[in-house]
């Protein structure tokens, strides 16, 4: 396994009257090339958990091991972990500060000592990997760009470190449908072409359906579900119990199941269409079972 999270607990403001326990004995493993979504309602501990994955937060109990190295190391080994696990925060464009897109994307590798032609090649690769035209945009100010482009510059500025794992906290928040689709497709390409491991923090069921294979659900700092995405989407009761609102597609599938049609939970509109053709219309079974 590539990332091991073992029995991790974390409390903010520990030993004060304001202590809030964010993680309670969380264990999970992430393998190379996986695409994992971490779900749960606001305040469940998602963001605290992902900040443990690259040593930004250290476990107060338990341990986190990345590629064989415990995150509590210091110095060069910790830098190595932060280079391997790239973390993209929510609204990452709020943290941009450079004058040009090139300088923004070059910032991290330059700090790692990358220079000259290799630096340029990295910036070009990272920008193209997220679908930004290098020549057209490299000299622009990041702040002249559209919201979707700014988001992609922010992600490119992490990719330019050549991480093996990309952790994204609500990457599509605030993007319009085109910006969102473009970003999710680029993430899929990165997985396919470069074997990038993707950890997505989200409460958007549609995003999860589009790119994740596996779902980890947190509730009050505990892992309450860890399994394939379709398995999680098969049970409406469980989804709602953990504050995840089923997409309209899933709601339609649940209604059809309640009326006696064995429709599998769909991830895309096309899948629901095929399920309906095959299992509802082809059979023309009367709706005898009422909700």
């Amino acid at each position, binding site marked *: 396994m590539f990332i091991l999270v073992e029995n991790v607990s974390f409390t903010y403001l520990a030993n004060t009257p304001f202590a809030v326990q964010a993680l309670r004995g969380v264990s999970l493993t992430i393998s190379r090339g996986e695409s994992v979504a971490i779900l749960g*309602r*606001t305040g469940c501990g998602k963001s605290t958990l992902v900040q443990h994955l690259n040593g930004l937060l250290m476990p107060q109990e338990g341990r986190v091991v990345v590629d064989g190295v415990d995150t509590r190391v210091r110095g060069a080994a910790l830098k190595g972990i932060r280079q391997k696990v790239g973390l993209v925060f929510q609204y990452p464009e709020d943290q941009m500060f450079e004058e040009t897109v090139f300088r923004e994307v070059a910032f991290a590798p330059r700090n790692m000592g990358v220079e000259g032609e290799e630096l340029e090649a990295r910036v070009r690769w990272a920008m193209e990997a997220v679908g930004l035209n290098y020549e057209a945009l490299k000299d622009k100010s990041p702040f002249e760009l*559209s*919201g*979707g482009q700014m988001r992609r510059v922010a992600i490119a500025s992490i990719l330019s470190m050549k991480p093996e794992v990309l952790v994204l906290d609500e990457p599509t*928040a*605030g*993007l*319009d*449908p*085109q*910006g969102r*689709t473009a970003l999710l497709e680029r993430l899929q390409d990165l997985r396919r072409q470069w074997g990038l491991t993707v950890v997505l923090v989200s*409460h*958007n*069921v*549609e995003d999860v359906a589009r790119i994740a294979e596996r779902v980890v659900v947190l509730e009050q700092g505990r892992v309450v579900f860890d399994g394939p995405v379709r398995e999680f989407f098969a049970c409406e009761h469980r989804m709602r119990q953990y*504050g*995840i*609102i089923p*997409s*309209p*597609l899933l*709601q*339609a599938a649940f*209604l*059809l199941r309640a*009326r006696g049609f064995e429709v599998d939970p769909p991830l895309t*509109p*096309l899948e*629901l*269409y095929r399920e*309906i*053709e095959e299992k*509802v*219309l082809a059979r*023309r*079974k*009367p*709706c005898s079972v009422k909700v």
Partner: protein
Amino acid sequence: MMCFEDVHFWYGEKEDPRAVAALRGVSFVLREGEFVVLLGRNGSGKSTLAKHCNGLLVPRKGRVCVDGMDTRDESVLWEIRRRVGLVFQNPDNQLIATTVEEDVAFGPENLGLPPSEIRKRVDEALARVGMSEYRKREPHTLSGGQKQRVAIAGVLAMHPKYLVLDEATAMLDPEGREELLQLLRELRKDVGILHITHNVEEALLADRVMVIDNGEIVAEGSPREVFLVGKDIEKWGLELPQIVEVALLLWKDYPDLFSVLPLSPDELVDALCSYS
């Protein structure tokens, strides 16, 4: 009635046919008691339009009238702003006082109302958005959805006739979003609502949907009418609601499956079940 008549607006000195976020001849009417959703991609001009509703921006050409008052007439601007409440995207940028009830009282205090009337309006507005029990809380301890409800209470305490929400759901989690949409459904009887969003699912709740692209209203009608365009909606940078996409695929193969386009999961499933 809020009325946009051939409104043109551009940022900067001169009109530029390619500039983003400009308005190019926008005309529409929002009536009291009507719930209208305005859809548009980033840069389509939707926030520029929102700022015209209460005179934060005024047209370079054409005019905007609220109950007959022109937003360019400075003598009626305060009355226009009382009648048209705006709620913005970021819940953290809209609350200014140290407690919830003081925040809601800010507007009525500035109207110079007597204290008993302010008290009454604050209590009513907080009850209306379901936040009465939080009235002594500090705004920063609330969730995003709760903050947006307080922001709306602050507007309601002015007794407005129109409520304009500029991507007010964009930064909320799914539960906060549901809360806010439920509140809009309840408020629609009393005020005219213009809800601006790029989330097509939210448009399904509207009496009327308008699509803005490149500064022009390019489609207008009931949700059923507007979403009949099918995949062509992508040319405006939008997507179809999921259920509509499934329904349109099915409709191609089974032309007699639906008498009207289903919009919700319930409508889709009911139509499928009555078909066989």
